[in-house]
């Protein structure tokens, strides 16, 4: 038998980096496919292929088709990609930081803080004179959500940090307390809200990409991209952190600096994502968990793969939300919760050793 040259470079046993590299390519292709599909799905029967064909052959494109594709579906697609990537990567980063696969922006109160900020902007903005109220609705909600997630992350950090060291257990427990506090304050705001606001709040609270627009995307995208851009600097440090903080320090990691960067990255990504699409749960916990099962926990691959799979899954969930009760649509948060909730419980059961897989 002729030995082939590539057998010389075959992956060593225990080395999953090649498999992970292949998975990155596959996930990128999958995301491209889901994105293309997402452009074709909607309440109206506009086909981007037909429109593209018309455009290439110099045919007429109706204003309606152009608006549906370029001003409704395209910003929605890009919003879905960014929000999905931001939520999944934030989940993976937090889990690496806490060395716990159950940590998630929703669990440590970061999403709750963002929600409180947004709800306060909606309700208190309504008290302003009408001319300012509409401005507040457009501009203040994303800003307030970002401030909310940042403030809750900062408080969390202050509470859980002593003498420059963060206790993971305290941070998780403080996160639960912060989440409850934010929830209570949000409840007060909902109590104060009028009927129109209440409908806004309900819809927004369950999460949706329906409000996506170029102007909202322009406000939120740079913040989410900045948060995602920190990931490559975090990957090696998060790997070392799996050994514990002391061991990471012995491997040359600047642990405190790395933790601060991770927290900022999460606050930026989650704040902007919640602002633009409301609270969409479970993406941050389900995506990294599935990927760890498939290709292992190496963050150099886990973080980019989380971005790709998070984006693809959110687009899929959005398509389900759009077609299942068409021409109306479900809030996407309901779809991700219905699919993600059982997965979360399954992870818990595995952790407790009740399910043998």
């Amino acid at each position: 038998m002729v030995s082939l040259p590539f057998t010389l470079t075959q992956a060593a046993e225990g080395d999953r980096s090649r498999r992970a590299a292949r998975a990155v390519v596959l996930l990128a292709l999958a995301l491209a496919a889901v994105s293309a599909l997402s452009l074709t799905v909607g309440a109206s029967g506009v086909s981007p292929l037909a429109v593209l064909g018309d455009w290439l052959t110099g045919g007429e494109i109706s204003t309606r088709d152009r608006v549906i594709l370029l001003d409704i579906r395209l910003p929605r697609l890009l919003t879905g990609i960014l929000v999905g990537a931001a939520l999944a990567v934030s989940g993976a980063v937090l889990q690496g930081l806490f060395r716990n696969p159950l940590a998630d922006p929703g669990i440590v109160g970061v999403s709750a803080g963002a929600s409180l900020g947004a709800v306060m902007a909606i309700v208190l903005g309504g008290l302003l004179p009408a001319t300012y109220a509409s401005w507040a609705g457009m501009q203040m909600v994303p800003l307030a959500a970002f401030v909310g997630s940042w403030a809750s992350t900062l408080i969390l950090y202050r509470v859980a940090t002593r003498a420059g060291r963060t206790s993971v257990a305290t941070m998780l427990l403080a996160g639960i307390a912060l989440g409850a506090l934010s929830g209570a304050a949000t409840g007060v705001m909902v109590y104060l809200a009028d009927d129109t606001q209440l409908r806004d709040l309900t819809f927004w609270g369950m999460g949706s990409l329906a409000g996506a627009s170029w102007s909202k995307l322009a406000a939120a995208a740079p913040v989410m991209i900045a948060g995602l851009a920190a990931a490559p600097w975090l990957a090696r440090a998060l790997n070392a952190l799996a050994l514990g903080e002391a061991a990471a320090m012995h491997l040359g990691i600047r642990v405190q600096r790395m933790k601060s960067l991770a927290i900022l990255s999460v606050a930026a990504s989650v704040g902007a994502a919640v602002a633009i699409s409301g609270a969409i749960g479970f993406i941050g916990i389900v995506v990294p968990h599935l990927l760890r099962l498939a290709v292992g926990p190496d963050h150099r691959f886990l973080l980019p793969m989380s971005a790709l799979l998070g984006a693809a899954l959110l687009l899929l969930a959005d398509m389900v939300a759009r077609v299942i009760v068409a021409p109306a649509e479900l809030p996407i948060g309901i779809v991700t919760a219905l699919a993600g909730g059982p997965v979360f419980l399954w992870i818990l059961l595995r952790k407790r050793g009740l399910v043998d897989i």
Partner: protein
Amino acid sequence: MLSTEDITVTLGRRQILHGVDFRAEAGQVTCIVGPNGSGKTTLMRAITGEVPFRGRVRLDGDDTAAMAPEMMAERRAVLPQSMPMAFPFTVLEVVRLGLVGRAALSAEAAALPHRALEQVGLSGYAGRLFQELSGGEQQRAHFARVLVQVWRPVADGRPRWLLLDEPVAALDIGHQLQVMRIARDFAAQGGGVIAVMHDLNLTAMTADRVCLMHEGRVLAQGRAEMVFTDATLGHAYGCALRVSTPPPDGGVFVLPQAAA
């Protein structure tokens, strides 16, 4: 030389170390021994920078407080007592975490993890999940990781240091000897080894130099034959111990005496 000058550690209101002056030479194995709570591990943690302390730690002349973490990581590797590992990494992936700094980029780097696994008797374990290993196997996998980190005992004219906190605690006698032999080889090639130990006989067999701790202070340090005497050990451990010299190679041997 790795030395501490007047190290004092206070945790909460309790003072754990009272002005410890400790010294270890490159090319030697130095063991820190002492009863539970005598401050051995705290001294090690001060040396590695894990606990805040007053005083000074010098690594071949450099004050460790002023050294960047990346530089420290290239000059010394630390094996802590026990470390639960988060997430299902393979043994190979864990050992590869030891590739730090410029060494990680060198052509030799690819072969280092497998060589280290072979050294600690874990060849064939590369593909196993770390979390599924026994306690002793995990300890040896971590030892392999630490060996990868300071794979050259001397580099750029400077010794590398292995700092081991109870490296044989979870190991059977065969692997205890194996680990201590690797430590001896490392020292013989010019590197420095400091190990916190419980087993006095293994210490007497391995150590060029012994530091005996008692109640947060150094009770005695020097060659094992000088530190290990009936009186000193009896005072430190609060029990009757008989030190003798067995025939073959003349090393000291500590035998516990039944309570009278």
